[in-house]
């Protein structure tokens, strides 16, 4: 045996852990060592393939969970090794995810139902006010009832849009602006042939959360109602424009008219108009900037960061 062959044989015997028996020829020991090493190698190859299969099975379960399919479960081997721990962990996380998803869906249904009921209740209140206003003879009081009726209707519409929304967290304010303005045109415009309403809303959706949507809705309601009520006295003709412009940071809600304009001495801070007082207070509430241009009619520009 050459030195190289002897070195290889010795290394093989050492790696295999086989002991040379008394009187045994080193070549016979090498044959036994080779069998051990070969058997170990084959076992290792089998384990590699088996581990890859088990890991793939767990990955299949993970992928099913990712698509919210909870029917698959990872299996266990007899070894209670790290792969079994992974399988157990994935199975348990799947169970928790299933429960959370069910709870979330139940809550979503409940929330949708709540918004639906709030909308219905507000509509009932609004209708009651409307009915009651029919029994009032004093014109001024009747007008006040009508205004309250519109304010409540504006809020009801927010809840209606909310329960119709995809995720219940907010409404597409552009869509709301169109709906409310159209609604006010039907209910508050004294003569649509004399006062025209233009609505110009950015097509890109702007999601507004409930806490910002209600104030914005009421502001819009007041400004449009104010226009119908005061901008075109007598038989004066003209138009009211409602614009909603989406910005990267700041959105603009513009309500303008080419009517008689505000009185020269008008001061928003000291106005007696409850509607405009409401506009000021609600603008502050949502940190919006309100600009009034009293030139060639009236223009209210509300700038807010609401999203």
């Amino acid at each position, binding site marked *: 045996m050459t030195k190289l062959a002897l070195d290889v044989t010795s290394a093989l015997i050492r790696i295999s852990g086989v002991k040379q028996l008394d009187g045994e020829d080193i070549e016979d020991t090498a044959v036994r060592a080779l069998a051990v090493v070969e058997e170990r190698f084959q076992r290792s190859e089998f384990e590699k393939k088996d581990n890859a299969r088990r890991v793939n099975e767990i990955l299949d379960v993970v992928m099913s969970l990712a698509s919210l399919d909870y029917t698959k479960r990872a299996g266990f081997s007899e070894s209670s090794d790290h792969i*079994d721990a992974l399988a*157990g962990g994935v199975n*348990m996380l799947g*169970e*928790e995810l299933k*429960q959370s998803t069910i709870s979330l869906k139940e809550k979503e249904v409940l929330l949708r139902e709540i918004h639906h009921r709030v909308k219905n209740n507000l509509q009932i209140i609004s209708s009651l006010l409307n009915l009651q206003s029919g029994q009032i003879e004093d014109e001024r009081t009747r007008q006040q009832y009508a205004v309250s009726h519109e304010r409540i209707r504006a809020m009801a519409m927010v809840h209606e849009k909310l329960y119709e929304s995809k995720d219940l967290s907010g409404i597409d304010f552009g869509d709301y602006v169109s709906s409310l303005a159209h609604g006010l045109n039907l209910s508050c415009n004294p003569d649509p042939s004399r006062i025209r309403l233009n609505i110009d809303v950015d097509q890109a959706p702007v999601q507004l959360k409930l806490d910002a949507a209600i104030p914005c809705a009421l502001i819009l309601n007041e400004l449009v109602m104010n226009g119908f009520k005061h901008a075109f006295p007598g038989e004066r003709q003209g138009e009211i424009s409602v614009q909603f412009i989406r910005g990267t940071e700041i959105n603009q809600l513009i309500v303008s008219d080419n009517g008689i304009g505000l009185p020269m001495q008008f001061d928003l801070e000291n106005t007696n108009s409850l509607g405009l007082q409401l506009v000021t207070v609600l603008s502050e509430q949502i940190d919006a900037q309100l600009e009034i241009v009293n030139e060639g009619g009236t223009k209210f520009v509300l700038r807010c960061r609401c999203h």
Partner: protein
Amino acid sequence: MTTADSIFETSLDPRGFIISRVAPLAEINLDHAKENTAKVREISGDVVYPILVDIRKIRSISKEARDHFAMRGRKPGVVAIAMLVSSPLSRIIGNFFLGLNQPVVPTRMFTDRDQAERWILNGKHEEHD
């Protein structure tokens, strides 16, 4: 059908805590969990003890059983839980009881039984948890 008796070996340690050992390769479901709770109450009598649960050989535990052991919405039958773990699987399960399925009483995971007993017996759970 397996019963809690074949899954858990539960007894009262004379030093003043319950010990419950999970059988090798046990797959625990809600029935087993409920039976174990009943057994703990039976052993405890009027006293509420801490418990040492040896889950080193556990194979799996269902979601319902985990929720049951978390004791939410029911009066706890133990004052603290020390979980004895060793295998990767038992560590994973133990961590569920420290997070997603956290029981309402102080719960801690140990790999060393002496440390677990010390935590229970010295009232450490009352101080730190």
